C-alpha cells in the first residue's frame, strides 16, 4: 500500500454568472471549468513523484485538493489507508500534521506581520504540546536545518531575501515532522542561481527525514534532478507516467515529447528536437471527447477521437495515447 493513493480525482469549478444561468434556463448542463479530470497516481513512502505540466493543466489544483484547501468534486484520496477526500475540515486537522505544503511564492506565502520564528513556531503551537521554551529550541533547530542562521529568525519577511524566505517556508513545512510534503513549484519564483540551493536543501531534508514528496513543477531540469518518477499532466488529465530517466530518454506521449523539446538547454551546440504542437492549449471549459491533445498533435489519427485511458504498457510505465 502506497503512502498516498489518489483515484479518479476530479475537480470541477462552476462558472457561475450569466452563462451558468442561461444554461440552467435552457435545461442544459452547467458549463464548468474541468480543472482536474479523473487523475490517479500513487506516492510510495520515501519516494518523490513529480507532477509536471504547463499552466492550466491542473497540477496546482491537485495540490490544493490533497491539502484540502479545496473540496474535490469527486474521487478518492487515501493517506496511509484512510480516506481523506471527504473529511470535513475539523476531521482533517490531525492530518495536517502529517501532510504539509511548500508554497510557490515565497513572498506571498509569508505573513508580512509575523517574524520568521513566529511562523515556524505556529505549526508547533497548533499540533504539539511543547512548552514555550521547548518550542523555541525546536524552532532554532529547524532554522539551522534549513541553513538559516539563528539571528535571522527574528526578521520579518521584508527583511529577508527571496531565497531566505523560501527557506522559512520550508522550515514551516517540516516543523511538525510530516511524512508527506507537497512542493508546489517551490523554485519557480527564485532566481535560476538560487534554485540549486533550494533543491539541494529539499534533497537533504528528504534523505535525512525520510520524507515523501509530490513535486509539482514546470521546471523540467529540477525535476530531473530531484524526482524518481514523473507524471505529466495536460488539460486536467495525466498523459504519461514513467521513471525519471526513462521519461527523459524515451518520452512516449507526444505532449511529453513536445514539452521536452521546448526546454532550452545550456549548450550552444545542442541540436533541438523539432517536434512541436500546433496551436495553443484549449480552454479547460471545453468538454473534449477522446484524446485531449487531438487538435494539436501532428501524429493524430482517426482513432484519437475515441476516449483514451491511461494504460500500463510496461511495469510502472503508463501512457494515455492510442499510438504508443
Amino acid at each position, binding site marked *: 500500500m502506497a503512502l498516498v493513493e489518489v483515484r479518479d480525482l476530479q475537480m470541477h469549478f462552476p462558472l457561475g454568472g450569466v452563462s451558468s444561468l442561461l444554461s440552467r434556463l435552457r435545461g442544459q448542463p452547467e458549463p464548468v471549468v474541468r480543472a482536474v479530470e479523473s487523475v490517479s497516481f500513487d506516492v510510495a513512502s520515501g519516494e518523490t513523484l513529480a507532477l509536471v505540466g504547463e499552466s492550466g493543466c491542473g497540477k496546482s489544483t491537485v495540490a*490544493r485538493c490533497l*491539502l484540502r*484547501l479545496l473540496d474535490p468534486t469527486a474521487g478518492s484520496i487515501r493517506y496511509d489507508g484512510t480516506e481523506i477526500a471527504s473529511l470535513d475540515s475539523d476531521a482533517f*486537522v490531525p492530518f*495536517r*500534521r502529517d501532510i*504539509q*505544503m511548500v*508554497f*510557490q*511564492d515565497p513572498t*506571498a*506565502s*509569508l*505573513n*508580512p*506581520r*509575523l517574524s520568521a520564528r513566529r511562523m515556524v513556531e*505556529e*505549526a508547533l503551537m*497548533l*499540533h504539539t504540546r511543547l512548552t514555550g521554551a521547548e518550542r523555541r529550541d525546536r524552532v532554532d533547530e529547524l532554522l539551522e536545518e534549513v541553513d538559516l542562521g539563528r539571528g535571522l529568525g527574528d*526578521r520579518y519577511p*521584508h*527583511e*529577508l*531575501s*527571496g531565497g531566505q524566505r523560501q527557506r522559512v*517556508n520550508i522550515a*514551516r513545512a517540516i516543523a511538525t515532522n510530516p511524512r508527506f510534503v507537497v512542493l508546489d513549484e517551490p523554485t519557480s519564483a527564485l532566481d535560476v542561481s538560487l534554485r540549486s540551493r533550494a533543491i539541494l536543501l529539499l534533497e537533504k531534508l528528504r534523505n535525512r527525514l525520510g520524507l515523501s514528496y509530490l513535486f509539482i513543477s514546470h521546471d523540467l531540469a529540477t525535476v530531473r534532478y530531484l524526482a524518481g518518477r514523473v507524471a505529466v499532466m495536460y488539460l486536467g488529465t495525466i498523459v504519461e507516467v514513467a521513471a525519471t530517466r526513462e521519461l527523459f530518454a524515451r518520452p512516449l506521449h507526444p505532449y511529453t515529447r513536445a514539452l521536452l523539446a521546448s526546454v532550452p538547454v545550456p549548450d550552444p551546440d545542442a541540436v533541438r528536437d523539432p517536434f512541436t504542437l500546433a496551436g495553443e492549449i484549449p480552454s479547460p471549459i471545453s468538454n473534449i471527447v477522446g484524446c485531449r491533445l487531438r487538435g494539436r498533435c501532428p501524429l493524430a489519427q482517426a482513432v484519437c477521437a475515441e476516449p483514451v485511458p491511461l494504460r500500463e504498457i510496461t511495469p510502472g510505465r503508463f501512457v494515455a495515447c492510442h499510438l504508443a
Partner: protein
Amino acid sequence: MSILPIETPAAPISEPPSLVWRRIRRNPLSFTALCVIIAIAFMALFAPLVAPYSPDATDAGSALQSVSWQHWLGTDLYGRDQLSRIIYAARVDLSVAFAATAAAVAVGALLGAVVGYRGGWVDNVAMRAVDAVMAFPAFVLAMGITAAMGNSTGNVAIAISITQIPAYLRLIRGEMLRVREMEYADAARTVGNPAWRIVLVHLLPNCLPPLIVQATLAMGFALLTMASLSFIGLGIQPPQSEWGVMTAEGASHIVTGEWWLFLFPGLAIMITVLAFNLVGDGLRDFLDPRMRGIR
C-alpha cells in the same frame, strides 16, 4: 515594472529607529500637525496645571472682557476665563471623539472581518444593512439618535459611533476580501489554523494600515460632529465647557461685538480637526510599504 533595484540583497535593509525618524520628518506639515495634536492632548490631560483659572469660576466684575493680560482669550457673560474653559473643554472633545472612534473601529472592524471572511449570504445581508445606514447623511443620523436617546455626553459618543461603524465595516470587509486570497492565508490553513485564528492573527493585522489612516481622519470628523450637535443644542448642554457649546454661546454675541467668544472656540475646533486630517494624510504615506526606502 519598477526601475528601482528593489530585489532584496543578502544583507537586508531593516528599519533602525534613525531611519524611521528620517521618514517621519520627510513630511514636515504632518509632523507639525502631529506635534499640535500631542500638545493639545497634553494640555487636556494636565488641564488643572495648565489652565490659569478654574473653568467654572465666575467673576461678575470681569464679565465680557476682551483679550487682556489677565484673561488671554477674554471672558464670557459670567466672567469665566475663556482660555481655561477652552483647555478644559479639550478634555471633553478629545475624549468623546476618541471614545466614539475607538468603539466604532472595534465593532466595525470585527464585524467587517467576520463578514468579509465568510462571504456568501452573510456578506450580502451585511452589505445591504450598511447601505441602508449610509443612505442617511451621517449628521442627520447622529441628530436623530441623540434626540431619541437624550442629551448626555455618553449618548453623543454612542450616536457618533453608530454613524461611523458602517464605514469601518465596509473598509475591513474590502481588505479582508483581498487578504483572504493571499497565499499566506492558504499557508495558515495548511498549517492547521482554525478559522478564527486565521482571521484574528493572520488576516486582520494586515488590514490595519488603511484602518489606522481612516480612524485618524475620522477623529476629526467625530469632533466636528460633536461640536455641531452641541452647537444646535443637542448632546452636550451648557454650562458644560465644550467647544461646540462655547461656539454656540459666542454666536449669540456676534451682533453685540464680543468677537472673542466665538472666534477662539471655533479656532480650537478648526485647528484640531485640521491637525487630525494632516496627521491622517501623513500616516497614509508613512504606512505605505512602497514608499519605504525611497526618498
